[in-house]
């Protein structure tokens, strides 16, 4: 019989070790999954995790790591603040879409004027779009005590319908021969989120993600607000006694995460995606949830987790074209990672005792 014994203090060792163990367990069971699909497990894992970094075409794939990783990190940093305080924003996908729509809308409104002010205006609009969309669950929670998980999630489906309506209607390219989707922002110099150094994958979204990481780190480690976030998550009652205003914290956490998700959407639509279209969003908002947990809700951890998750996207694409591995297998793989992480987290807070328990 295995007994669980609560540790007096969470183990620091296991806090760092569990993400690694979870990755290893995912390798193993993911390998089994790939074998069940009739693929060689070792080749599959190597293709996903080795090829993009050190393979023959890694010069092409490595910049992709930043392109795919940046939105994940940006969104996950925001989510982690709320998760830490027990405020669950699950609707980042919707905030991401709204940020993209607002930002792209501002850019397209100025077409074809060229000005250095257009891109900054789009960034502001994108951030505002995401922030405003996240304010809906935040204000409803503060005013009426409505469950923010359900409201933020419902808003994802609403945002997706908005996206469809915009790409078929208001933002549709008038010169697009009737195809859904907006003008391509990549071909509109003032609105294009271009690479800062050509071929590096480094665009403004990556810069924003770096700033967000530093900002979150300083906030959590040094600022009063970061203390409020941490203490609310660990002991809500104690937080009240120490003068934390829960309403303001909800508005701050949901607002910040919405703002960052909106930024991620804008940088994506103005850069790698290029246009508003029905299927431009790729589920970054949901994958970012995995990133936030895998990164232990810690800014530095989130950077590492974001890069790892970006790697599974890129490697997954390669495995898809080279080995015929279905795209959904990567999604299962990512889901597995979260499962193992949550399960192994047990080791951080509890000690395993082997042998029979003393008579109760």
């Amino acid at each position, binding site marked *: 019989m295995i007994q669980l014994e609560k540790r007096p203090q969470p183990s620091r060792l296991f806090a760092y070790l569990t993400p690694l163990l979870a990755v290893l367990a995912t390798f193993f069971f993911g390998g089994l999954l790939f074998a069940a699909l009739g693929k060689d497990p070792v080749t599959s894992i190597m293709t996903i995790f080795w090829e993009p970094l050190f393979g023959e075409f890694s010069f092409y794939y490595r910049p992709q790591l930043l392109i795919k990783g940046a939105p994940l990190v940006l969104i996950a940093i925001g989510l982690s603040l709320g998760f830490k305080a027990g405020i669950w924003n699950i609707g980042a996908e919707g905030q991401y879409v709204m940020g993209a729509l607002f930002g792209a809308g501002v850019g397209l409104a100025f077409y074809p004027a060229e000005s250095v002010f257009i891109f900054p205006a789009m960034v502001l609009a994108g951030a505002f779009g995401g922030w405003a969309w996240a304010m809906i669950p935040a204000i409803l929670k503060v005013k009426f005590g409505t*469950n923010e998980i*359900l409201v933020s999630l419902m808003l994802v489906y609403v945002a997706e319908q908005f996206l469809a309506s915009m790409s078929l209607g208001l933002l549709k390219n008038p010169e697009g021969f009737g195809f859904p989707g907006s003008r391509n922002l990549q071909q509109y110099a003032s609105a294009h989120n271009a690479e800062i150094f050509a071929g590096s994958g480094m665009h403004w979204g990556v810069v924003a993600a770096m700033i967000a990481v530093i900002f979150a780190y300083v906030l959590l480690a040094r600022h009063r607000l970061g203390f409020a976030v941490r203490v609310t998550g660990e002991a809500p009652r104690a937080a009240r006694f120490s003068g934390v205003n829960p309403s303001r914290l909800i508005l701050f956490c949901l607002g910040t995460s919405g703002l960052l998700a909106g930024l991620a959407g804008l940088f994506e639509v103005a850069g790698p995606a290029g246009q508003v279209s029905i299927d431009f969003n790729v589920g970054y908002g949901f994958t970012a949830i995995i990133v936030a947990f895998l990164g232990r809700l810690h800014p530095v951890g989130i950077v590492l987790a974001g890069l790892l998750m970006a790697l599974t996207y890129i490697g997954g694409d390669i495995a898809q074209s080279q080995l015929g591995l*279905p795209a*959904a*297998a*990567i*999604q299962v793989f990512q*889901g597995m990672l*979260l499962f193992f992480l949550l*399960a192994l987290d047990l080791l951080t807070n509890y000690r395993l005792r082997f042998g029979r328990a003393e008579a109760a």
Partner: protein
Amino acid sequence: MDLSVINPILLVAALMSAATPILLAATGELVVERAGVLNLGVEGMMIVGAICGFAIAVETGSPLTGFVAAAVGGAVLSLLFAFLTQVTLANQVASGLALTLFGLGLSALLGQGYVGVKPPRISDIGFGPLADIPVIGPILFSHDPILYFGIFLVAGVWAVLKFTRVGLILRAVGENHDAAHALGYKVVRIRTLAIMFGGACAGMGGAYISLIRVPQWTEGMTAGVGWIALALVVFASWKPWRVLLGAYLFGGITQLQLNLQGAGVAIPVEYLAMSPYVITIVVLVVLSADKSAAPGSLGRTFHASH
């Protein structure tokens, strides 16, 4: 626009069918939450049920076998959640989300060979002449067996929770797990069974979408119905009959919205399609004032040593 094409009798009959997936999933989740567990994985269990039911129905040619398979599929998937939250004591919110993300991927993987396949149809129960009664006939006596099963399920859950010892124990575990534990009830075991029941119900709800509502398989076809089911449990203040009422309300909105699309109302299709989600939010706001009905231990992790 021509509103006269909307036939109110057919609308009512159709809304019962539109409500059934939500009804099944929400009834299952109600039992889970009454046992004190918040499982946010309903969407994931529904979509896995949808593909399990679809695949087995296609392979065996029997829709009813499909529904059984869907229930088994949903219950098996829910065991993952049960393991995470009851054995490894993981956070219920995070585990539920993990279940949904995993379920969406798994169903897409399982469903690869089934895109574009037509499932065997389930025939309506033959009530003979009863179905020919005007107004009442089409509304009450012209449905598939699963729809009636859904209504019986609500009645059954209500009766079990209200009148039986099993129901009493389940509620005790949900209200105060420490007290229930002190009385000698196996909290973890009871909760695991409740989670499996919820999984089975969600799985059948998913299969209702893929086998009866839409009759085909497409990735992510549950499109948020699982989340609406979760909202419905709050709406119903954790009471079974109110789940039925709420499900019909939402089924009605869904169906009306489809009919308005068909009638060519001047509102763009996308805005009609978002209406069930918007109305869910409005209903949540209206009802969120009263939290008194929520089970006392809802969402809290139980470990005997605490």
